[in-house]
């Protein structure tokens, strides 16, 4: 126990404003929290569906929860059930085998709901494109509010995408 406490104290607080143009992004972060409060009352819950990604986007979604980006510190958390979610995050070009599961997950989320498509595949079909097995971009299957490009998008870009989605909801 002593070692654990010592390490926690030594580590300190790692959470930072995203490391690009400082001030503007710090503002972005604050705005995000404020918007979340305005629109959703207290917190934003996200449900993720991997609809056909290479798992690269998932790596970065894991990363937004690490101590540096600390998404949960902003009142945004990932939930296990679509019934608890406000926002659906979708990665990958949608494989035909995931089409039904994605639609059902979307339908299971209560209104008002937002959808963010993540990564080049989710935005425009990416490298896998449209084929016998793949339906391409997420908006070919369900309505999408915001797209975040990148292969994979960085944690900062993912956070900005979520902010944009929350901001555009009236």
């Amino acid at each position: 126990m002593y070692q654990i406490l010592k390490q926690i104290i030594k580590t300190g607080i790692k959470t930072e404003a995203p490391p690009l143009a400082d001030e503007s992004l710090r503002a972005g972060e604050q705005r995000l929290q404020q918007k979340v409060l305005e629109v959703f009352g207290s917190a934003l819950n996200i449900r993720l569906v991997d609809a056909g990604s290479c798992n690269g986007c998932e790596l970065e979604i894991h990363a937004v929860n690490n101590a540096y980006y600390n998404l949960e510190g902003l009142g945004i958390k990932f939930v296990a059930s679509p019934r608890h979610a406000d926002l659906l995050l979708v990665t990958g070009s949608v494989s035909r085998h995931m089409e039904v599961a994605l639609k059902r997950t979307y339908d299971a989320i209560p209104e008002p709901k937002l959808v963010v498509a993540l990564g080049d595949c989710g935005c425009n079909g990416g490298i896998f494109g449209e084929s016998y097995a793949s339906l391409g971009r997420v908006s070919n299957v369900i309505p999408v509010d915001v797209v975040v490009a990148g292969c994979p998008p960085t944690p900062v870009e993912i956070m900005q995408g979520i902010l944009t989605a929350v901001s555009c909801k009236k």
Partner: protein
Amino acid sequence: MKYTCPDLKLLELNGAIPAWQVVIEASELQVLCQKVADGGGRLVALWACDERASLSRFVLHAVLVNEAGLLCLHLPLPQEFPVYPDISGIFSCACRMQRTVFDMLGLTASGSQDMRPWLRHGAWPENSFPLRKDFDEAGRQEADNYPFVQVEGQGVHEIPVGPVHAGIIEPGHFRFSIIGERVLRLEERLGYVHKGIEKRFENNSLLFGAKLAGRVSGDTTVAYAWAYAMAAESIANVVVPKRALWLRALLLERERIANHLGDLGYLSNDVAFSFGMSQFWILKEQVLRNNAALFGHRYLMDKIIPGGVGVDLTETATLLAECDLLEHEVKLLHSILEEHAGVQDRYIGTGCVAPALAAQLGLCGMAGRASGQSWDARVQHPCAPYDQLDVQMATHQNGDVAARVIVRFDELFESLRLMRDIIAKLPSGNVLAIPLEKLPGNGFCLGMVEGWRGEVLVAIHTDAEGNITRVHPHDPSWQNWPVLEHAILGDIVPDFPLINKSFNLSYSGHDL
């Protein structure tokens, strides 16, 4: 050492890994597989090609491995009767590969016990085969009602899980048959993220293929890109600059380090030890940031290209400092985890795959080494620069979650040693030969790299003009997914996330 098959004409296959190839007849397939299996060898990959247009035939390809190297069997099959003898009785992991060969090309393994579809759900009809050259994309079929094996008895019930899981993970379906909380049987149903990767390679450029190979499984992008480049360079007989090879190894070890750090974090998280989660992920983030700063991509995608690498290392101080930091911190976290009774209570004895079972089922890679299967391509078949690095293989006999954690720690420390060694010995010179854009005609070669999860194999075939006609990327998850069904037996349902994470297999790399 060499394969001893006096009746067969083995031809040495050009490449960085010792490999031989031979054209066989259907009657020889089982005999040869049995012979390799008896000698302690394993099946690495199984795929097929449609050569009906040029030679009126299909060809089944199987890659086996033993201490001598790789043995690639080519079995031509007449187009009117594309049937070959079942080998899943010899290598149990062949079962799902054979089912996939049928789904994709319509070749039947005669005598197989399991003829259910595997990667095909409803995206294409039963009598249509995507990897045949005359495949019609228009066909669809309603999602079939997949026949799971039923477990019956008083008090037995089923829990279906997925394809959409509770956490941030890839999709797949797990069917648990349980009594109380104890798992009597687990059956997997994968293929949800089948996105037609193999078809996508066909008739596309070599460089597009390199990008695509790097996205077969995003967490293993370096290993795939290297294996793909290795196969392409072997066909073209290109000499890759030494510095490029050493940089590839540096990138591969960094990928291993990042993934092991992330997994150790999640293995802490899954036993509700959130301290471990945040600590390991702080370290992983630092590695990723150094990747971005030094190589231009957090996960090192598209940095390995056929002919060399697309990025050079200009300073080494950052990496050496990172090595020191990781070594110090990981040692500390290791001792904390080791001494934490609650953590060890969940790890020890959970998800056990004994060495005998692991050998029988062909468990490979990092999970295999934790169950006494001492295979590591960097050790047995070291391509440059691993032939000069003397990699120390990490193994364990217990085969439980605890063993897989220990092997991860050992490999992490070994990768840090390798990284320092690579930096010290890094040769000077170019990092890219003339970029390879086109391959010679009628080529076939293999590339194999020990990724963090296990051996990654890529096979490339070209036609008479040198166009890519077929690429088969093979993930070690093919071998290891079926073993997970055994690992959970006798444990309880809440142990499954922990056991699953301790293997951390790829869905994308498997579903293709």
